[in-house]
């Protein structure tokens, strides 16, 4: 049944595409409206509600002192987790994260970690004994497509609003978490040789291949992930990277450095 619907839908989207159009009238490299609301959860150290079109993602940051990893005794720890709760989509099921949720969390984590946005060495409290642990918890509320970009935006926006809760743990006064970079993830799908950015949920369901590119404020690529059971030509990848850099710059300037 669902595959019949998806076949019809696929034809419809494909026919539009031949005319150079998308279901919601956007151009191929156009993002849906973005809104970012910070500090929405008072109980969290930092938080952000991101809306990307109708997609909604809430990210909360919690911090607490804990033990460092043995091989990085002087560095704080980042733990990123994503809950694809069944409230957000008929396709999500209750239970521990499946491979889709795990991949999402790991790619969000990759952006934060590889951009070196958080100065982990500044999060050392007692070398080898006690460091700050940052929990980045991604809570998907409404999956109308491209929740990965929304979650990545949410993570960095929430970190930008994060106050280190030092006083609660008797470790001095609270202070804003210092950030060194603002990574932005940009995702495109490939369908019928066309590349479409910021795919909606229907576009995602028909595409075989998706590529996410995470770029830093300095213009470097700090993370990538191809997903889906399709393939990409190298030129397609290079083209996605070029556009991704540009889109990320726009999003960063407009929403995050404000």
């Amino acid at each position: 049944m669902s595959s019949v619907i998806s076949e019809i839908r696929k034809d419809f989207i494909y026919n539009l595409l031949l005319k150079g159009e998308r279901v919601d009238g956007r151009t191929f490299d156009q993002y849906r409206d973005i809104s970012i609301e910070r500090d929405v959860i008072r109980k969290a150290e930092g938080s952000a509600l991101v809306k990307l079109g109708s997609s909604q993602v809430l990210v909360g940051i919690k911090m607490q002192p804990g033990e460092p990893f043995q091989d990085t005794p002087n560095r704080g720890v980042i733990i990123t987790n994503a809950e694809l709760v069944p409230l957000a989509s008929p396709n999500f099921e209750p239970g521990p994260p499946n491979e889709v949720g795990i991949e999402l969390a790991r790619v969000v984590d990759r952006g934060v970690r590889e951009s070196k946005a958080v100065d982990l060495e500044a999060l050392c409290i007692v070398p080898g004994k006690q460091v700050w642990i940052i929990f980045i918890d991604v809570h998907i509320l409404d999956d109308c497509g491209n929740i990965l970009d929304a979650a990545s935006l949410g993570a960095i926006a929430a970190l930008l609003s994060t106050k280190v809760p030092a006083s609660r743990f008797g470790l001095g006064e609270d202070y804003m978490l210092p950030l060194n970079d603002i990574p932005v993830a940009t995702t495109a799908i490939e369908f019928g040789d066309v590349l479409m950015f910021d795919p909606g949920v229907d576009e995602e369901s028909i595409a075989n291949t998706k590529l996410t590119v995470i770029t830093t404020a300095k213009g470097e690529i700090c993370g990538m992930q191809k997903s889906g059971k399709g393939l990409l030509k190298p030129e397609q990848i290079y083209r996605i990277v070029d556009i991704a850099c540009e889109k990320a710059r726009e999003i960063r300037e407009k929403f995050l450095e404000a």
Partner: protein
Amino acid sequence: MDKSDISFFKDGLRLDGRRADQLRPIRIEVGVLARADGSCYIEMGGNKVIAAVYGPREVHPRHLQEVTRAIVRYRYNMASFSVEERKRPGPDRRSYELSKVSREALEPVIMTSYFPRSVIDVFVEVLQADAGTRTAGINAAAVALADAGIPMKSMISSCAAGKVADTIVLDPMKEEDNFGQADLPIAMTPGGDITLMQMDGGLSPDEFHQAVEMAMKGARDIYEMQRAALVEKYGKIEASTIEVNACE
């Protein structure tokens, strides 16, 4: 911190300035999610809770199907960041119990016999917690069910009463819940039939009566707000249809 260190009342008013029988500020928004069949966002004091309804839809796994009626599932879940000390993701014993009693608070009014072999899924996410998340969740879930067009015999409204400093109070907030003497959450139909009743702490039979009456009064007020929120979305005429649906 110890109970004795707290004075719950100042000049006859509570820590947040409320009278003993006053609700915290409530905000209800209907239809806040695009994917769900019905949804509702509620703020009750510091609580921020969102509910979604999916269904009636097919049951997986199959062996859970009932031949003569829809089954109802209810999943109460707290976001990791919703509380002071980060909560590990996933259900714990408390959330299993709350899911069960919340489901049983709503099932009496859902016309499950209309949808044999189906499931109606209710998902409640607590985004910020401040005492009273189960009642907030039930209130949001009941509105989300109406928003999803699920036929109901009536609305369900939920509210707690508590006892602090030997006084019965309505809708306890975090401090009152943590250091109070009793907590009594209920849910009920507009007609006054009780569908949720839990209690812990210590109440004399007289205090118990008083607390039940006060909680029922609170639930009645919440009912008006649920109704108003549905009217705001569906307009007067449609909402009255819902209400016809929703009143025996």
